[in-house]
Structures are given as structure tokens and as C-alpha cells.
């Protein structure tokens, strides 16, 4: 499986994503600079976390208009796989590749902690190594992760199984206390209808070794290998 990691100015999880992909896939990912006008042929493009362009405008809005984004769009339209983690998720919604928007956290504060996620749909490119309803632990770290969509969209993505990860408590229950940012329906990660594009606020790339505090993020990358190899 060939992958590439995008760097926007002030991306800051690009190295972490690059390392995780290299460690788990065994292959060195390509690096894409936001001004590149050509992207080598790859199976997966990763838009990493960070504060692209400082997030001084709406998070991800500037990045979504970078020169390299045209190639990402073309790749996605061809059915190529794209993941956006944290700021990357925000970029994907700004590009219109994923429905909804990510608003400021309900607390109006940045939140960094390990959360529990329920794998709502284990039948996707990104979740096949987990089992349905598995409760996994993954860290979040964001200021704008409060997922919002209109009712019609919410109904549609729920009915289509596009809601892949949901914030839950340790016992697996969807609750207000388990929701770190105020997301509607406790949504933590979604795919597009076709299933080739995924955005999620939590950071699986931070939880791939025991010493980091957990390894539940590995399943995410292992799923991708299973699906794309």
C-alpha cells in the first residue's frame, strides 16, 4: 500500500502520521507540500492534524484552497482513499468531501484527553480490524471538534452507516459526559457515502505503542492495510 502525508503550513501531526504509517505499513510514505501541483500515484492520502494557516480563519478553510488540494480532490473523485485526522477532518468538511462542519467545542476550550470510542461500523476500509461496537481508547486534542450537520444530513449519514466512531463512556454508553466537545449524536468520525473518505477528530496515530499509553490506534492502520493491499 502506498501512502502520502500532506503538510500545510502549521500542520503539526504530519510527522506523527508519517511515522505511524511507516511503522505499521512497513512502507515509507510520500510527503506532499501544500503547494505541490502533482502528487505521485498513491492508494491513500492523509491530511494530518495541526493548525493549518494558524486556523485564524475557520479551521481548515485556508488549507482547503491550497494548490495541492486539487490533486486530492481528483484522487478522491477517482475513488482513491483519503483520511483527515483532526485538522484534516476540518479540511475535508471545508472541501465539501465530507458533510457537516466542525464548530468550536461546547466548552469553548481546547480539550486534550483520552476518550472512549465505539466502533459503529466495522465494515469500512478504516475499521475492518475492529469488531462492531468495540470500545476503543484514542486521544483527542482539539479546539474545534464539535460536529454539526442539519437534521436531514444527520439522518442520512446515520442511516447509511457513515457514522464510524462515536464518543462513549467506559461502559460503551453514548452519554453527554462522554462527549468531549458537544458533537451532535456524539459523532467522532464519519465517512462519505462511497466510503473512500474518512474524517475523525481523535488521533489514532498517537496510540500505536504500549508506551504511548495505548495501542487501540493500530487497528485503524491495520484496517487500511487489510483493505488496500
Amino acid at each position: 500500500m502506498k501512502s502520502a502525508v500532506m503538510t500545510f503550513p502549521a500542520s503539526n501531526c504530519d510527522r506523527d502520521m508519517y511515522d505511524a504509517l511507516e511503522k505499521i505499513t512497513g512502507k515509507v510514505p510520500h510527503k506532499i507540500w501544500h503547494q505541490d501541483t502533482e502528487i505521485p500515484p498513491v492508494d491513500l492520502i492523509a491530511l494530518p492534524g495541526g493548525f493549518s494557516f494558524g486556523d485564524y480563519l475557520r479551521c481548515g478553510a485556508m488549507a482547503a484552497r491550497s494548490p495541492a488540494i486539487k490533486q486530492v480532490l481528483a484522487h478522491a473523485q477517482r475513488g482513491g482513499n483519503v483520511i483527515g485526522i483532526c485538522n484534516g477532518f476540518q479540511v475535508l468538511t471545508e472541501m465539501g468531501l465530507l458533510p457537516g462542519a466542525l464548530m468550536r467545542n461546547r466548552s469553548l476550550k481546547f480539550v486534550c484527553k483520552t476518550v472512549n470510542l465505539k466502533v459503529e461500523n466495522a465494515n469500512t476500509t478504516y475499521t475492518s480490524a475492529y469488531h462492531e461496537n468495540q470500545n476503543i481508547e484514542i486521544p483527542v486534542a482539539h479546539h474545534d471538534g464539535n460536529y454539526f450537520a442539519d437534521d436531514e444530513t444527520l439522518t442520512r449519514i446515520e442511516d447509511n452507516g457513515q457514522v464510524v466512531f462515536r464518543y462513549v463512556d467506559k461502559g460503551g454508553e453514548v452519554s453527554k459526559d462522554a462527549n468531549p466537545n458537544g458533537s451532535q449524536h456524539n459523532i467522532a468520525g464519519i465517512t462519505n457515502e462511497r466510503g473512500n473518505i474518512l474524517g475523525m477528530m481523535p488521533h489514532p496515530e498517537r496510540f500505536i505503542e504500549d508506551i504511548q499509553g495505548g495501542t487501540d490506534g493500530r487497528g485503524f492502520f491495520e484496517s487500511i492495510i487489510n483493505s488496500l493491499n
Partner: protein
Amino acid sequence: MTETNWNNNVEITPEIVKEHGLSDSEHKLMIKILGRNPSLTELGIFSVMWSEHCSYKSSKLHLKTLPTTAPWVIHGPGENAGVIDIGDNQAVIFKMESHNHPSYIEPYQGAATGVGGILRDVFTMGARPIANMNALRFGSPDHHKTRHLLSGVVEGIGGYGNCVGVPTVGGETNFHPSYDGNILVNAMTVGLADQDKIFLSAAAGVGNPVIYVGSKTGRDGIHGATMASAEFTEDSEEKRPTVQVGDPFTEKLLIEACLELMSTDMVVAIQDMGAAGLTSSSVEMASGGGVGFALNLDMVPQREEGMTPYEMMLSESQERMLVVLKPDRVEEAKEIFVRWDLDFAVIGEIAGDGNLTLSWKGDIVADIPTQPLADNSPEYDRPWIKTQAPATIDPNDVASPNDLGETLIKMIASANLSSRAWIWQQYDNQVMADTIQMPGGDAAVVRVHGTDKALAISTDCTPRYCYADPFEGGKQAVAETWRNITSVGATPLAITDCLNFGNPERPDIMGQFVGAIDGLREACSILEYPVVSGNVSLYNETNGTGIHPTPAIGGVGLMEDSSKMVKIAPKDEGDVIILVGESKGHIGCSQYLSIIEGREEGAPPPIDLMLEKKNGNFVRKHIINGNINACHDISDGGIFIALAEMAMASHKGMDISLNNNSIPVHTYGYGEDQARYIISTTALEVDQIIADAEQSGVKVERIGVVRGEELMIEDCFSIPVNELLDAHASWMPNYMSNEA
């Protein structure tokens, strides 16, 4: 060249000199160095270079006495940050710095730019920043400004550090009324570099180009260094315009661009523009290299129109660096900065005359010999009187509480001992994916990327001890970082000190400073734990009331094998709990006395540094050998608080039986005797540890086991761990939501 050509044609009257904070003798010295009266720009340059903040004029006499060398020290104080050797051609570069006055006036921007400034001190030497820490002191929770300041400072630290992508991995936060009018915001950055790629600031090579990179220069922060060198008064609010505004996005670009530049061989010298901006960077680079700088101020990228030379030289606009390049490499270097969308301008060249010569619109507006400006900066031996240490409180003179269990709940739910999760959850503490011990433990631990090594970092100071007895308090601050680093299994290597005190012109305050330095010196020598960088912040007073003396210490230690690291949470049911060190029930200056009795009295616990070393080395050896599965040092609140913190971290109960017959149980349990640890081990290994302790002359006592869901201390209390967790977690969120 005549004086009338010089900028603004401002006549330098004694009043203007006084407004610039220069004393009569400093004024005379300035005229002697110049051989004439200064221009306004020159007066501004002298005033900031000789401000307390930049010149250390009250402190340097004493700072010189601190131990600064060890075989592993590569660069001690004097550079932008300290540099130590961690093997494999790798170096760790670190420093802590204060941003107190700006943070009081404008908490978000003050704290944010404090983080930005310390990051630049570290990456300007060629290091990639890998961890941020902080040490924060606020006024009483009851003070009307405390919520606003705490909220703004924490958001500012997070807002900057999170964006630049450097994890904020730990720190400490205290509340005390002595900080009501003068909070302390001390920020520390730790970076990693290759030993053969360390960059210094001394310029060289007459004719080499001087390059300005980063953000444009604006009018923000003019006289920031001077503000940091004066007491606060009622009208300090009016100084809001002297607080700089941070742009972490530009800082992130600057880090990447500078590290890229420094990976080539183009750079001769590089320096960030920190306090006193273009002035201090150019003077330090020139005087450090024994050369001059000829700068054309028309070439300085400017944010606003009509800026004068005076404003440009004194601006403290953030995210700017000064670089001396090798000749003929300008275009190559420019390509890097253009790619990162940063300003890049050749603003002058190295001159052979040793002068800082500034031209502007065709005129020479300043011409100062840099060596005398830097070297002849004033140095004062300020009068001081020794702080009289209070008498030691007899444990038998402190009444016992009605209910020890209620006391424990009250203590862990107090402002100073409650959970700081509300704070550190606003910091990205995991970006870079190398954080292996998060906030909440004894020391933060980050891996050295791509290796098995790890760095342990801790910031500590107990200001109430320092106030009662600056000497013992100074020793204790150093010893506590050493102990915290030891508790995770790392070997403490060196410290940075951030010395926050009141007005040095008052002999009692100067006495606190001298006492604390004596304590630091003794602890650093005995623990072989030198000072490699630091910062002094004086005049931390409002309307004549000084803060508690606060020599905040940031320690760094190394683990060769990060897999051996331990945390404070015991592992398994049945594990044995052992107390290391001697407990005498020292209750003076304790959290117990303050929280339960409302008294801040007595002598602080004495620090026996040889005992610290013996006990610490014993604990570390057993962690590295894998015999210990959890360890927590005993500090604020004594044994009871340490046990409660371990139980909360593990979500497991303990059955404890103390071996104490002679000391009142509340002073035994809450006493703050030093050089102590609580360790947990498996039943299989306990005998080996105890046998080795006997052989090494280390006092250990087997005090209990991990069991059940309650913290049970025989004859004292039994409290469900969940109840402890609720009490511990609730204070700060409740307080900040205005319900406390």
C-alpha cells in the same frame, strides 16, 4: 556628522534620562562610553541594555557563584539556553524564563508570548523543541482577578504551544495571596539537537551579511524590558500597549524554516529577538564576537508606516530572528524563507570597528561601541540582610483534628492540592507522539525520538518554604526536581533556574535572593546537578508588597531505557507498599498547617542533601533494575497525600498500617519531611529491596499492600477511592465555573 542631524532632534534632558530608568551614575557612564551626549535612539538602546531584565545588574554578582559545570555540560549560562550531552552525539537544550508582568496586564498574550520567547531561545541554538513546561503562581482564589488571570494564562499557553505543535507536558500551579497583584508565569522549553549542529550567537566575519527573518516590526512591546524592571503600581494597567502580541502560526513557520536553514552550512551566527528586540540581539551578537554591526534601518521589514529608529530598535514584536550568513549564500537562504512565507531582508553587514552603527534615511542615528555597552553594564552589590529563620514547630503543639478522614478530603479538595486536569486538558500534551508520562505524575517524560532514551522533566519550587527560610527553600526547590526526576527512574543531569523575587533595592528582599542562591548552590553542588541556564525576574511587587521569593527550578534527567520508566500508580492487587526515608512529623510550613489550621508558620523542613542523594540513588537503582513498579515522591501534604494520589492514579485501594508510635498521627501523616518516597513492588521482590536497603543504610518500612477499593489507613480512616477522586477532581472546575 553632527548631533543636529540625529533623529527627531530631541534634546536629551535629565527628565528624559530619568524616564528611561537610568541612574545618574549610569547616565555618566553612558556619556563616557560615547564621548558625547546620546541621541534619543542611543539613549533607548542604553536604557534597555542596562535594564535589570537584560543586564542582571543586581543579580549577576551572586549568580556567578552557582555551579555551572559537569562533564556532561556542553554550554552553561551565557548562551541563549543551556546545553547538555545525552550521548550518541545528541544534546538537550533547555531554559526557563519568566513573563510575569505582561501576563498580569494581559494574561492571554502575556503567557502566549512567554511560550513563544522561550521556544525561540531553544530553537535558535539548533534544537527542535520537544517539550514545554511551566510554573504558574496565582493570587488567592478569593481575589477578584484570579479566575480571569488563570483562565487567560492557561488559554494563552495552550493557544501558543498547541499551534506550534510542541507538547506541553507538565508544570505546577500554586495559589497564594502574595501573588494577588503580581502573578508568575514561568515557561520552559526543552529541545533536542545534534552536538555538531549547535548554533551560537557570536557574530564573525567582517562584511558578512546580517539577515532579518520572521515577522515584520511593529510598535508593540516597546519598553517591555524596562517594564519588567520596575515595580507595579495602580496605573500598571496603562502599560497594556507594552504587551506584545503572539502569532504562533508564524512561530511554527519560523521553527521549520530556521531548522532547515541550520541543517545547511550557511549560518555563521543566529539569535532570536527577545526582550529589547533588535537592540539586544544585535548588541549581543556583535559584542559576543568582538565585531561591529552596520545596519540600515530602512531595510527592516515594518508593519506600520512612519516608525522611528527609536521605535524599531526597542520594538518587541514577536517571532523575529537575526542571522549572520556566510558570504554569497543569501539567495540560497532566502529561498527557504520565501517557501515558508516569511519576511527575509538583508539589513546590514558585519563591521570591523566594533560599533553598532545605525543608518536611517541617509543619516547615522546611532553609533555605539558594543563592547563597552555590553561589558560595562552596571553591576551592583546591593545591601542585603539575612532572613531570620523562624523557630521549628513542635509536632506536639499542633492540635489533632476531629476526623482524619474529613481532613484528608479537605486537603485533596483544596486549591493547592486538587487536581490540575482542568489546566492540562487545555494543553496538547501528546503531539509528536513521544510523551510517555503525561501530566499528573512526578515528572513528565518524553522519548528521544526514534531511540530507547527518554528525558524526564520537572518544574518545582515551594515558595512558602523560601519565604520562611530562603536558604532551605532554595535547597528544597532543587532537591524536589531531583527527586521527581528520580521517581520516574531517570538520572537528574542539570537545571535551569527562573528566579522570581521582589524589589532588589530593599535589603530584606535582596537577603531573600542571596539566601536562595546560597541554597541553590549547595544543592546543585552536592547533587552534582549544575545550573546551565536561567533567568532573573525582580521587582515582582505591587505597591510595595513583594511576592514570596520563588526560585522556580526546571530539572532535566535522562533514562537510557525508557521501558524501565515507572509512574505513580501501583499495578496489582497484593503489591507491597514501602515507605523510603525517615518520617519525623515536620509540620512547620506544611500544607496541613495552612489548609487545616490557617497558619503559615514555623521553619520549613530541613534538607539533608546527602540523605537525598542516598535515598534517591537507592530508589533509582531499583527502578532501573525493574524491582519497583510504581514510585511517588513525598512532598506537599506528606505521606497521606502521597498515598491518596497513588490510590487515585491506580483506581485501587490500599491497606496501610503505619509504624509510628512516637509522633502524633496527624503530623506523622501530613508532615513534610524531605528525602522520602513511597514505592510499590511485588511480594516476590520485597525482601530483596528491604535487604538491599539495610545494606545501603537506607531507611525503609513496609507499610501495606494494594487491596480493594478503599484507601484504608489503620486507626485513621478508610475512604473509597472514588470519593477521593471526586473530591480531588472537583475543586478547580467548580471554582472556574464560579461556584466555589
